[in-house]
């Protein structure tokens, strides 16, 4: 990185660290922080979307749709995250390749499962075997985001389902008295009012989601935990210009600080959101805000 980094063994501590912390591997480490943030930025809204659909389905009047919603919530919430992650990502990946195989290589007559092997034709590979490494990584990342969204969507669905039921019935009756249709009451009265009931549950989910990001590592995405373990491990002078002992503790301490800061910032933001949502609501919080001197 810097011009004086050619022979690190001769450097003083400060310069040594400024070289050490800017090596190629460390850049990968820093990039992985953005991966985690990106995962959160994408997963949170998608999971909320899944949750909203799940909650709507679970309270539908048409029974089969209600069953789908209820099953989704019960199934995903009931299976341990790790088991779901490991199973679902492999199943999804193989499912996609299986479908592509049927469409793209119809005249392929070998079995897809050969003993232990899962083999599809070259054109059906997802991503293609000759695609660049970043395409493979992006694909793996997308699978991970999708899996996270499904898991956290189920929890969000449960929270939203409860929140929808928590909106006082008289509020909805008022809407009906004004002659609104069921759909209009739902969108104009129920949805705007339910957030204040949903937020405590959703903010809890958000915290759990932040803390669950190291599961990325399980899914083969090189996240901050992977790099912290890799970088912190003992390095002997034969294989690196920057030998050091077992520094994993310091790297993990760094992660700890990162996660703590991140959850703290989240808490502050969620508190503000909560007081914004409480305004004018027929809840204890809303009443307290109203009575407080302006």
């Amino acid at each position, binding site marked *: 990185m810097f011009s004086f980094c050619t022979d690190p063994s001769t450097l003083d501590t400060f310069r040594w660290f400024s070289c050490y912390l800017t090596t190629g591997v460390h850049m990968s480490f820093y990039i992985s922080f953005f991966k985690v943030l990106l995962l959160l930025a994408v997963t949170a809204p998608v999971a909320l979307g899944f949750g909203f659909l799940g909650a709507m389905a679970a309270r539908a009047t048409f029974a089969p749709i209600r069953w789908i919603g209820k099953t989704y919530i019960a199934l995903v919430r009931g299976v341990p995250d790790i088991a779901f992650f490991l199973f679902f990502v492999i199943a999804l990946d193989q499912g996609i390749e299986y479908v592509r195989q049927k469409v793209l290589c119809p005249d392929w007559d070998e079995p897809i499962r050969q003993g232990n*092997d899962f083999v599809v034709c070259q054109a059906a590979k997802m991503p293609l075997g000759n695609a660049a*490494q970043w395409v493979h990584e992006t694909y793996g990342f997308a699978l991970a985001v999708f899996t996270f969204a499904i898991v956290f969507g189920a929890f969000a669905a449960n929270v939203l389902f409860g929140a929808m039921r928590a909106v006082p019935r008289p509020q909805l009756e008022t809407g009906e008295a004004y002659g609104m249709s069921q759909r209009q009451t739902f969108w104009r009265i129920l949805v705007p009012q339910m957030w204040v009931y949903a937020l405590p549950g959703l903010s809890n989910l958000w915290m759990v989601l932040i803390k669950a990001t190291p599961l990325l590592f399980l899914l083969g995405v090189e996240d901050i935990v992977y790099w912290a373990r890799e970088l912190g491990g003992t390095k002997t002078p034969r294989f690196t210009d920057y030998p050091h002992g077992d520094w994993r503790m310091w790297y993990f301490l760094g992660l700890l600080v990162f996660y703590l800061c991140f959850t703290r910032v989240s808490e502050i933001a969620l508190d503000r959101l909560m007081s914004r949502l409480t305004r004018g609501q027929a809840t204890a919080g809303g009443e307290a805000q109203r009575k407080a001197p302006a």
Partner: protein
Amino acid sequence: MKRILITTAVIAVSAGIAFADSHGKTIRMGTEGAYPPYNFINDNGEVDGFERELGDELCLRAQLTCEWVKNDWDSIIPNLVSSNYDTIMAGMSITDERDEVIDFTQNYYPPTASAFVAAAEGVDLSGGIVAAQTATIQAGYVAESGATLVEFATPEETIAAVRNGEADAVFADKDFLVPIVEESSGDLMFVGDDVPLGGGIGMGLRESDAELKETFDAAITSMKEDGTLNTMLKKWFGEDTTTY
């Protein structure tokens, strides 16, 4: 694919035919990247080590385009059989158990010794606590030796276990341990006798990938014959290492 297989059967097995399918395809090489000097991540964040250099040379000789992929040791075989990559070069010893699930090329590293490393002389290797990496031949050996086996996901953690006293000794490939003992300035030492284990290190491939196996077998043979493999072994493992 089927056509190729039939042709292969008719004209008898030959490595030349194998190129038909392999051309234009990128061979993805799976490795762990945590087992120096076999494979590790260098300062630039790239896969480096004996297997990187060897693998690149093999691909050159076989006229294949290759790309390196990192994968956790735990899931390195499952991800191979589900076709996430096409080969494993990760210091993996050829054993009968693995051979039932995947195929191996001929070995590119001769059958090698495994060794115990401890923090002090005189530890009890047959009744004490011995650390080894999960799903390695060394872990299998320790489990049968009567010692208490503690398993870790990465080689690094097995060494750390000995340093912090969690385990009495670590059992691993001697070539992995030599640099660690040398750099430990006396903290760690070899104890007990070396144990020859496994059938050498080979490249792992899917059982259905017979053509690719022949291609790489041929490339390894050519490297053994012209002595380049021995040069590479000496470069990475020192002058005293076993050669072909």
